[in-house]
């Protein structure tokens, strides 16, 4: 089961409302390399992992991704706070506004809704852990492109924190892969 904690993992600030940036950032909410994809991927892959370390790390990183999803939602919410319909139209968010108002919806930066086809659960722990390591690197790159798009130091502080988390997760998945590889090798030779 899961229990909600009524606080963010990181004090997510924005310097000023910025609708254009909200449009770019929402890809980390519902885009291919975003936090929803990450959480859903890890939390569903854990059931077919062969070692306790792998079951643990996928549960815990999957859960941390839910906390990151909340941070992204907070940032998008704050970036859109107080925006007029005219500002939304200028940022090319008229179509988004027609469908969702100012609600948070799982889409990428071009408005394409989230799909389970962004993720895989192969039932082969080596394949799944390689996918997870690649996913962390893709998310890291996305944060770097978003930092390039942003000129808001407060927003960038949170994006840099999230970028660093991808690097730590990549490291932990790499260690897990090695543990699982050794476990599978040890089963081959009695």
């Amino acid at each position: 089961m899961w229990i909600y904690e009524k606080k963010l993992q990181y004090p997510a600030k924005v310097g000023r409302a910025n609708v254009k940036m909200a449009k770019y950032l929402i890809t980390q909410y519902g885009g291919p390399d975003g936090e929803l994809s990450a959480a859903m991927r890890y939390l569903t892959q854990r059931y077919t992992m062969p070692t306790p370390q792998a079951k643990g790390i996928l549960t815990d990183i999957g859960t941390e991704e839910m906390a990151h999803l909340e941070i992204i939602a907070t940032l998008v919410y704050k970036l859109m706070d107080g925006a007029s319909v005219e500002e939304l139209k200028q940022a090319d968010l008229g179509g988004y506004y027609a469908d969702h108002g100012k609600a948070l919806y799982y889409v990428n930066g071009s408005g394409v809704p989230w799909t389970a086809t962004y993720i895989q659960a192969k039932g082969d722990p080596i394949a799944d852990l390689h996918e997870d390591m690649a996913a962390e690197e893709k998310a890291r790159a996305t944060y770097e492109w978003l930092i390039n798009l942003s000129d808001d130091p407060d927003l960038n502080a949170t994006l840099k924190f999230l970028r660093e988390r991808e690097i730590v997760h990549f490291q932990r998945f790499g260690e897990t892969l090695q543990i699982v590889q050794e476990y599978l090798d040890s089963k081959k030779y009695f």
Partner: protein
Amino acid sequence: MNREQLCMLKELMAVQFTALELHLYLDTHPTDQKALMEYNSVVQQLNVLKHEYQQRYGPLTWGEPSAYPWQWINEPWPWEICYE
């Protein structure tokens, strides 16, 4: 949210983050005794802080006692806080 509460909340967030980082490390290094000792000490500090914060400002999570009226729904929610 007043200055004092925000300050305490940020401290709590920082200590909890330290605990999380050690927790993930221990998942793949379960026999690292030094890291485990550090984890246990951080968790102890975290529990003291959580208890103190919740006594003053109400529940942060499920399963905590509440003053009257039900405190859980009190604003601000995490996305509404100005973390200045």
